[in-house]
């Protein structure tokens, strides 16, 4: 039996070898696909085993590699936290790799898939290394390796200019975030012992660095916003809805399901491990931004009709929910209430796992839909459930989970989050007592809006009738794609119905980070989830599921007691005749009431124009409705920044005036100035 760390390192090596070997096969594309993704699936299995056993064992082991700076080799370390995240990444990585075998084949013939194969493996390796690395240098290297490879994956279909633009925005924001992280490490290392001989860069040294006060806050802020840029926290989310649709769907699944999680890992590592116990406003900041991201994310998602863009905005929402857990945990920690912190942390981390699963599932499903219909625009879809008998139910599972409906996994983590919200009255600060419940209400709003959004998604994409102008031949996807989705769907159900098993295993994380273990049974048997006390609140997914099934069975029996015929007929629809498929509600009309209620948050341009033979008449031949919903933050933040920098660029350009006398004058004036002032 290998040690967990060995397993993880082995999987990284396998991935690197696969990406190195891929170009050699580039002449035989089919074999290339099979080989690469089989290899990455195998590597994921190794890593999964490693992560799981590390999480189960609860101990930390570390190793020092030979590469790196001479005085700063790469330090790798595997403790429960990183083990958990490795497990998350690997689990999703496995499913997505299986899925990719079928998905990537569809590119063959249209373009070379070699870059996709190479960078896919590099991307996986980068993510695993981020989670393993134990010093600032190797962390940054693997962090940027991850960013670079994912950037190249995003502009895989590089003929489309918007893909290139998306990739650019993504890379820019990611890199700025990386620099911020680097600076925060710089502060920690600078305060640690042995900065000048580079040994201060190890996380161990940072842990022991007695950084405190303003510097600690500065380090936290730098690091947090650095990671937030990667996680897509509002207002740093602008890249996310651009990059995810641009990337191939298997990559979007990984980026959204796994890569964002590495940012969460970074935040957890920074605020619970490297930095000393936080000031309460750190947690307050995280909580607030989490709430804003959750709400804004879901609202923007509701406004979308591009399937993958919509899902991308939901990633913003779910990252927000995860941050809520983290933020509450930090607040509780700052008031020295480790047990409650443990609950909040577990809630956040469990949602991390769940989100990886259902968002991976949903992105893979969208990939399947894209593969089948060749489009991402929901307005042109409908009725796919008749053509895709496998994809539809699997996608439905994803929808139910992300909408936080029992008995699936999304609900469990949101329920735990609510429970930790309900603990806030014990906080000694009146202000927090009053403010935090409002946060709970916002979370509730988010949950229901998400449900509304996914009624829209499933209803418009899979139900109803085909909305497209011309019929396209839609077909079910191949076995490997179904298998990939099926695995994640199974995970969603399992994590939803038997949450306690996983949560018990995750107990080693608060044990390691906060020094307390969480008892989620409170004396009840394993089927019960009672995080605080049996009297306070309890939830049992298995019983709920059984109960519902029993009730359904009973209802079925009752309903079928008397034999009645079933016949098909045109929809009645209040006797409305000549229903065409274009009269159905579509994504835009579905979200109209919500758009009207929350309209003030968006910049909406709505227009209706009569056209046709006599537009002026009361019954125009044609009526065109146009709607453009834009991200306000884009105009508050990004555009001004760009404008300012181009203005400055023009000013800088003026320096290069072209006249040699002017240049000589510069040098002359510089000389005089230095002589006078220096």
């Amino acid at each position, binding site marked *: 039996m290998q040690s967990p760390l060995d397993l993880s390192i082995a999987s990284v090596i396998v991935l690197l070898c696969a990406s190195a070997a891929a170009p050699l096969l580039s002449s035989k594309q089919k074999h290339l696909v099979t080989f690469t993704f089989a290899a990455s699936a195998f590597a994921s299995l190794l890593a999964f085993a490693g992560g799981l056993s590390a999480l189960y064992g609860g101990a930390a082991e570390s190793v020092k590699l030979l590469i790196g700076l001479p005085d700063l080799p790469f330090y790798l370390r595997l403790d429960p936290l990183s083990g958990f995240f490795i497990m998350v990444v690997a689990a999703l990585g496995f499913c997505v790799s299986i899925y990719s075998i079928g998905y990537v084949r569809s590119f063959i013939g249209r373009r070379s898939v070699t870059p996709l194969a190479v960078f896919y493996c590099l991307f996986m390796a980068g993510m695993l290394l981020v989670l393993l690395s134990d010093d600032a240098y190797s962390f940054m290297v693997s962090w940027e390796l991850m960013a670079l490879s994912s950037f190249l994956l995003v502009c895989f279909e590089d003929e489309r200019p918007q893909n290139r633009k998306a990739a650019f925005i993504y890379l820019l924001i990611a890199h700025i975030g990386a620099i911020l992280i680097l600076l925060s490490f710089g502060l920690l290392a600078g305060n640690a012992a042995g900065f000048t001989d580079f040994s201060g860069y190890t996380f161990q040294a940072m842990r022991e660095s007695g950084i405190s006060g303003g510097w600690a806050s500065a380090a936290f802020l730098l690091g947090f916003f650095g990671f937030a840029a990667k996680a897509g926290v509002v207002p740093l989310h602008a890249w996310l809805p651009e990059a995810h649709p641009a990337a191939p769907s298997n990559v979007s699944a990984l980026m959204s399901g796994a890569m964002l999680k590495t940012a969460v890992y970074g935040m957890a590592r920074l605020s619970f491990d490297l930095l000393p116990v936080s000031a309460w406003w750190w947690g307050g900041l995280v909580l607030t931004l989490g709430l804003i991201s959750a709400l804004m994310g879901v609202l923007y998602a509701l406004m979308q009709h591009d399937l993958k863009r919509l899902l991308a905005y939901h990633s913003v929402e779910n990252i927000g929910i995860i941050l809520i857990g983290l933020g509450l945990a930090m607040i509780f920690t700052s008031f020295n209430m480790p047990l409650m912190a443990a609950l909040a942390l577990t809630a956040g981390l469990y949602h991390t796992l769940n989100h990886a699963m259902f968002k991976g599932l949903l992105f893979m499903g969208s990939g399947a839909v894209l593969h089948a219909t060749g489009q991402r625009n929901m307005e042109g879809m409908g009725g796919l459930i008749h053509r895709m008998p496998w994809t539809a139910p699997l996608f439905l599972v994803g929808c139910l989970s992300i909408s936080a409906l029992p008995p699936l996994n999304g609900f469990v983590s949101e329920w735990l989050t609510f429970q930790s919200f309900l603990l806030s009255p014990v906080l000694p600060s009146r202000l927090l007592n009053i403010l935090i419940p409002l946060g709970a209400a916002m979370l509730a709003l988010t949950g229901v809006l998400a449900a509304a959004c996914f009624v829209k998604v499933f209803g418009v994409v899979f139900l109803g009738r085909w909305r497209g102008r011309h019929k396209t031949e839609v077909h079910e996807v191949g076995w490997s794609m179904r298998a990939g989705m099926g695995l994640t769907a199974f995970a969603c159900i399992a994590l939803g119905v038997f949450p306690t098993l996983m949560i018990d295993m995750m107990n080693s994380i608060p044990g390691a980070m906060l020094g307390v273990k969480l008892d989620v049974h409170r004396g009840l048997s394993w089927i019960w989830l009672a995080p605080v006390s049996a009297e306070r609140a309890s939830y049992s997914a298995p019983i709920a599921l059984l109960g519902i099934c029993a009730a359904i069975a009973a209802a079925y029996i009752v309903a079928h007691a008397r034999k009645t015929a079933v016949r098909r007929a045109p929809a009645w629809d209040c006797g409305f005749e000549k229903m065409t498929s274009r009269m159905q509600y579509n994504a835009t009309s579905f979200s109209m009431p919500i758009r009207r209620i929350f309209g003030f948050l968006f910049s909406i341009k709505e227009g209706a124009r009569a056209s046709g033979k006599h537009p002026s008449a009361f019954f125009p031949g044609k009526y065109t409705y146009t709607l453009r919903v834009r991200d306000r933050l884009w105009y508050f933040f990004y555009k001004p920044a760009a404008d300012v920098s181009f203005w400055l660029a*023009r000013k*800088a*350009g*003026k*320096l*290069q*005036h*072209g*006249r*040699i*006398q002017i240049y*000589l*004058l510069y040098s*002359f004036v510089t000389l*005089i100035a230095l*002589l006078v002032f220096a």
Partner: protein
Amino acid sequence: MTVSFAAQINSVLAALILLASFGLLVQRRIYGLLHIFAWQGLLLSISAAVVGYSAGLHHLYISAALTLSLKVIALPYILYVLIHRLKIHREVEEVVRIPTTMLIGIALVVFSYHLTAPITELSDLVTRSTLAVALATIMLGLLMMITRKKAVTQIIGFLAMENGLFFAATSATYGMPLVVELGVALDILIAAFIFGIFFFQIRTTFDTLDLKAMERLKEEE
């Protein structure tokens, strides 16, 4: 002759050199520029020789000879030939009007005196007081390059700067070590050839030596 006498001669020469560089600033005709430049070179070599004699440093004779051959004979001749061959318009055109240039020049002299005062305090050489003049010459050469429009005049300004440097070397430090002197001389010689080539290139590509033609490379608006 006595050291003090040598010092007096040297300061006279310094005054003349300064005068020469002002002359370069005011002179409107190119041949006139050449003459003044040659005179300045001559004064330099004399002062070098005088210093060398008075301080008994024989390598200064060599540098004096170098100066004589380069700056009094070779360079002016080359420039003369070039100007003649390229039929350069005889008038000097300036960017800044002459009187203004004069005023700036005077300001520069004052500035360089103020700057070198603390240094000359420290020196024990007889010629130390001339350091200010050397610096002033350099600054005036630079000023000339800034305020002139033609390539030729810029070159002359450049060479005037070199004169200032040389003067600084001799007066402030009794001359640099011989290796350096030779190297510098060599560089100046190469530079001379290069700008010779340049004049032809510029002439052939722009058919004028006016620097106005060479303001294309800039950041477009």
